[in-house]
């Protein structure tokens, strides 16, 4: 085992931030992709999930078609569409942009499904109570239905976020210098220590994912605490 070959100051630096000035890479780029992807796909996914649940009939059909289509093709195909197809139409996308778009569209489909199951789990009594105290339909959705649904789906969302973080590794197949690509470059340069390099990568991803799920767990505990003690923000 040649761990000292892998853990040189230069390699560690590259794994963490890539060739930072100028090109951000490594763990930093992976986390940037994941963070942007999580925020955007949650927003879009919630919109589609809500549309599928409560939209008019054509809207529901569109949303269902979107979800069923994107859940049944590989993310890699989507990334290839986003990166290799636009040049045929006279537009050259950036690597980062295409990966992000593909990641967001793909995971939004799953998050839409997650939210839909959450919406189905909202007890009818809650909605009746909201109506009884005179809330308008918009208020019912914003203050009662969506908060309860979002709280109920936190565990399922955590699973999706972890998958999204894992999915960022696919970006290396079009040459974006995120963590996997940096690892591959280090491996190609060393040649003699593949196990050490890739085991390091596995370990880094493992730690990132465990911290993500631990963070979501803390967030959920916090929300539960606020719920139990009725500490709602006013």
């Amino acid at each position, binding site marked *: 085992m040649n761990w000292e070959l892998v853990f040189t100051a230069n390699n560690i630096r590259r794994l963490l931030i890539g060739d930072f000035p100028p090109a951000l890479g490594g763990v930093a780029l992976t986390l940037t992709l994941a963070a942007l992807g999580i925020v955007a796909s949650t927003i879009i996914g919630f919109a589609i999930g809500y549309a599928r649940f409560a939209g008019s009939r054509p809207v529901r059909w569109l949303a269902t078609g979107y979800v069923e289509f994107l859940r049944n*093709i590989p993310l890699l*195909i989507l990334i290839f569409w986003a990166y290799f197809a636009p040049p045929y139409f006279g537009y050259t996308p950036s690597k980062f942009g295409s990966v992000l778009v593909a990641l967001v569209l793909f995971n939004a489909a799953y998050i839409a499904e997650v939210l839909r199951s959450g919406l189905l789990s909202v007890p009818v009594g809650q909605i009746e109570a909201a109506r009884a105290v005179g809330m308008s339909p918009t208020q019912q959705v914003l203050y009662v239905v969506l908060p309860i649904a979002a709280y109920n789906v936190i565990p399922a969302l955590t699973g999706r976020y972890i998958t999204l973080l894992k999915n960022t590794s696919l970006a290396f197949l079009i040459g974006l210098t995120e963590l996997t690509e940096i690892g591959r470059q280090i491996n190609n340069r060393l040649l003699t220590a593949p196990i050490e390099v*890739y085991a390091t990568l596995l370990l880094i991803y493992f730690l990132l994912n465990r911290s993500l799920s631990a963070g979501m767990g803390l967030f959920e505990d916090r929300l539960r605490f606020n719920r139990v003690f009725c500490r709602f923000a006013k």
Partner: protein
Amino acid sequence: MIKLDWSILLGDGGERLIEGAKVTLQLAATSLVLALVLGFLFGVVRWLQIRPLEPICWLYVEFSRNAPPLVQILFWYFSATVVLPGWAIVILRDYGFQFVAASFALGVYHSGFVAEIVRGGLNAIPRGQYEAAQAIGFTIPQTVGSILMPQLLRVIMPMLTSEAVSLVKNTSLALAIGVTEITYQARYIDVYTFRGVEALLVVTAFYLVTCLAIAGCGSLLQRFLQRNRRIAA
């Protein structure tokens, strides 16, 4: 808007895609079998809570689920050449070394999920079922065969189906180590003819049809498993 030229899919291009589809299905089948075997094994062992094995199983399941499948494919592919003895590599090379590495990695990755599904399903079977089986004098094989398995499969079949679908989708990652599956062939056609949109369209349709077919088979199987279900009044 570009004009699609389907003629590139006649002849060589089309043959490539058909070959690629075969490899994709083979890869999916091999890794699905491996994932089911390993997954049931680890799931049952975790459910039984055998003390000395517990940390090992936990580590296996957590690592296989939390590391990206792509990195696992690269890991097994590149480390196998270092770890395995020479004769084993010679044998594996005849089967296509990349293919073996990719199916092993995908099998391991999905076995973690299958293990958790199986454990959850086993936990969902009420204790009273085993006690009842014991009370009317069932042997252990009888209990497993006619009490445990039917209920377990009924509970876990939908989740296993979606796992199988995601496995088929993940086979596209094998192109990273040069397995000639269908996504690889689409890239090949794009690189050599500069007409990749047609090939990508075909490949997208292929995945769509395959995944929907698996989901359909899964729900048929689920209906079959539910056939004799009586709900106690």
